[in-house]
Structure formats: C-alpha cells, structure tokens
C-alpha cells in the first residue's frame, strides 16, 4: 500500500498517515493480521521523526484498528470492533462535506452515488 504525505497540508502528518492506514484497512488493501512497518522503518521511509509515526500507531491502537506487541510489532487487527455508529467527529465532518457539496451544486443522487462508490 502506498502512503502519500503532503508536507504543505494543514492536516498534521501523523493524522495523514493514520487516515490513509484506516482507508487502506477499509478498502482491503491492508488485510487483517497484516504486519505494519516498524516505527523506525516507516519514519526512515517518509523522512520524518520516529515520534510522529509512534503517535500515529498509538492513535490507531487506541481506536482499535491495530494491535502492537513487543515481539511482532504492529499488525492490523483481525476483528475490528464494529459499534455500528458513527463518531460525533465523523458526523460533523460528513455534515461539512454534504454542506460544501450542496453549495457546489452537487445533487443528492450524485452524492449518494459517490458514497456507494467509496463504501
């Protein structure tokens, strides 16, 4: 899986990595049980501080997407807990996206089509 980091984005780098790993798990690019690179290796690959990658992994772990242990490093969780609900944060983000789409003249059908495509 290829991770794309935009150095000039307003989104912090640790969040960009987190978002793309989550998208990778969702799309199936990263399968359950799949090994993730070590903190040091990923930091070297992107050319960032190890603390940044460590922060990403901590976040992903706390959100239940990955598991880490000393022996095997970081792995994608086989069974990700499904609450069946969207977080308040995501709801707000979705609301913003829908609002912007409406203001841009994107129809509801078009938006639903996009959601179907990405889901």
């Amino acid at each position: 899986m290829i991770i794309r980091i935009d150095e000039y984005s307003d989104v912090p780098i640790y969040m960009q990595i987190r978002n793309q790993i989550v998208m990778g798990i969702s799309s199936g690019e990263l399968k359950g049980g799949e090994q993730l690179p070590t903190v040091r290796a990923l930091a070297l690959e992107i050319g960032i501080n190890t603390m940044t990658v460590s922060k990403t992994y901590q976040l992903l772990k706390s959100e239940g997407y990955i598991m880490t242990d000393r022996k095997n490093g970081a792995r994608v969780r086989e069974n990700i807990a499904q609450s069946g609900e969207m977080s308040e944060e995501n709801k707000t983000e979705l609301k913003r996206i829908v609002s912007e789409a409406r203001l841009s003249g994107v129809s509801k059908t078009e938006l639903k089509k996009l959601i179907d495509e990405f889901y």
Partner: protein
Amino acid sequence: MTWLVNLILAICIIPSALIMFFIGFPKEPEKRKMIFGVRDNPKFHEGDAAKRVKEIAGECRKGALMITVFICVATVILVFLPSTTITSLAIMLLVFALFLIAIPFGKGNTELKSLKKELGITKSGTVYADLKNTNVVHGLKMPLLILPNALILLESVFAMLVDFGVIRITETLAIEKYSLTMMSLSFLFIGVIIVPVAYLMDNMRNTVISKDSNINANYSRAKKKCWADLFIAMSWTNALAVAVLMVLYMLIYNDIAVLAGVLAYTLVLMVIVLIVAKDQIAIEKRYARDTELELLDDDDCWILGMFYYNPNDTRLNVEKRFGVGGTVNIAHPAGKVIMIIIAILLIGSIGFIIWAAVTGNLDMTSINTPF
C-alpha cells in the same frame, strides 16, 4: 622517475575527467530523470521551455567540455615537459582541478531552477512511502563485503609482523621501514569507510515510483544491488591490491613494478565505476515507463545540484544527483561532521602538496629504479 609518477597521475586524471564529463553532461539530458540535478518536469518539454532547456544544457555541456579538454591537454603537456618540482606540483593540482568540471553542472542547476520559477512550476511537497517495502528491500550481502575487508585486516597484521621483524621473508628487506604497514593500513582505512557507507546505502529509503509495490521493490532492489556490487567489487579489488603490492614490495622489489601495480589498481577501480554508472543508467531507462507517481520536488534542497541540505529530512544519506553513489544530508548533525572532515582532508591535501613542493619534499628522484 618523477616522469613515471607524472605519467601514472596523467593516466588517472584523463579517464576521471572523461568519466565525470560523460556522466554529468549527457548529450540528451532531457531524456534523463534529472537535468543538472533538477527533477525533470513535463513543462520542460513544451514549446519555448524545451528550447531553453536545450540551450542551458548545450551551454553547460560546452563549458564542461572546455574544462575537460583543458585538463586533459594540460596533463599531456605536463607529462612531456622536463620533470621538475613545478611540473609535479602542477600535475598533482590537476587532480583537484577535476572538481572544476562540476562548475557548469552547478550553473545549469541554478539556471534550471530559475526557469522553474519563470514557468510557475509550484513546489509539490508530496512524499510517497510503500508500506509493504519498508526495510525489506536490500541488495547487499554483508558477508561478501566483510570478507575482503577482513582479508585486508589480516594482510595488515601480516605487514606489521614483517615490518617489526617478527616474520622474515627475505634476509634483508630492501624497502623503507613500515612501508608495508602504511600501505596496508591505508587500504584498511578505505575499507573502514566503505563498510558503513555500503550499509547506509543499502538501508536508504526506497524510491516509490509506482502504485504497484512490486515495481517499487524491484526498482529499489536493482539500484541497491548496483551499489552493493560497487562496494563489494571495490573491497575485493583492495584486498587483491594489498596482496599484489605486498608481493611486489617484498619479493620483486622494484619501484616500476609497484607503480605499475598502483596504476593497474586505479584503472580497475575506474572500470568498476564505469560499469556501475552504465548499470544505473540502464535501470533508470528500464523503469522510466513504470514511473507514474510525481516524486517529491526537493530541488531547492540541492545546493548547486550537488550538496543536499534539508533540515526537514531526518535521513543522513541520499542518492547523489551528480556522479554515482550517495551523499549526505548536510542538515543532519552527522552530515555536518562528515562534510567538515571531507573539507579538512581536501584543503589539507592541497596544502600538503604545496608545502611539499615549497620545501623540496616533492622530489622523487630518490625512488629506487633499475634504470
């Protein structure tokens, strides 16, 4: 005898100048990924910009050609002039004059960066990382590198034992005391530098050129293998050179033979570098059609296209944009130390040669010769 040393230096200088010229200034630089250390851009191939790029490349190539021809002609003339301290000094300084070939490269780099600004090519700060290839793509087999250097270590120990009289090869060793030790330790020192550099190059960040992880892995592996081969070949050449030079020193003892050995060693190294450069170009050509991702635009971090200074990059080593191999990130603390050491060694060498010439220590007429 000085004439022979000058001839050997000349035989080293001329191919080096030609290698630098042909690697740094290709006939059609617009077909390469990098043009004078500036990443190629689709806008460079459109209308007036394409013409301008051709002009810049042509001017710089012409400049580099003039410097190369000057160095080669001056070297040949100096070899055929009567051997004096002045000619020896001049020919030794011509070794350092090889760096002048990099001047047109720096000029081309600066002009292309200006052209980028004129064309409004905005700096993109995109970095790609392939999760599947991190820390798994390598080309270096460490034992193959360690073995020749361990051999040099053994040879150095043997040389010391001979020099200190513990082992007696011939009744009277006709060479100056500690010559063997100095020679073998010099090669050992090179090995001590080669091993960590090879390790660093092998652990360098992988280049992501495609969305296909296999292509990225193969591309990075091919490049790393190329560097690994270079360092391994250099190490084996060094190990062999120490053995041959020791035999020449101890058994055949003849200055001409030793100097011929040094010359052969230098030529072998040059051939190795040429082969690696050729392989690198072949890899770039092979993967040019697979390159689909726009790589990070860090041209501004490359001072004159040769020195990498990027405080936002935590890496110590990066791939060179002029020549073959890697260079250090000067913004890295270790990179600063390495660059200071290189600068001291370079200035020190020039200073030493001039000092030796002024004090008359550059006279090599005392070297043992059968003539």
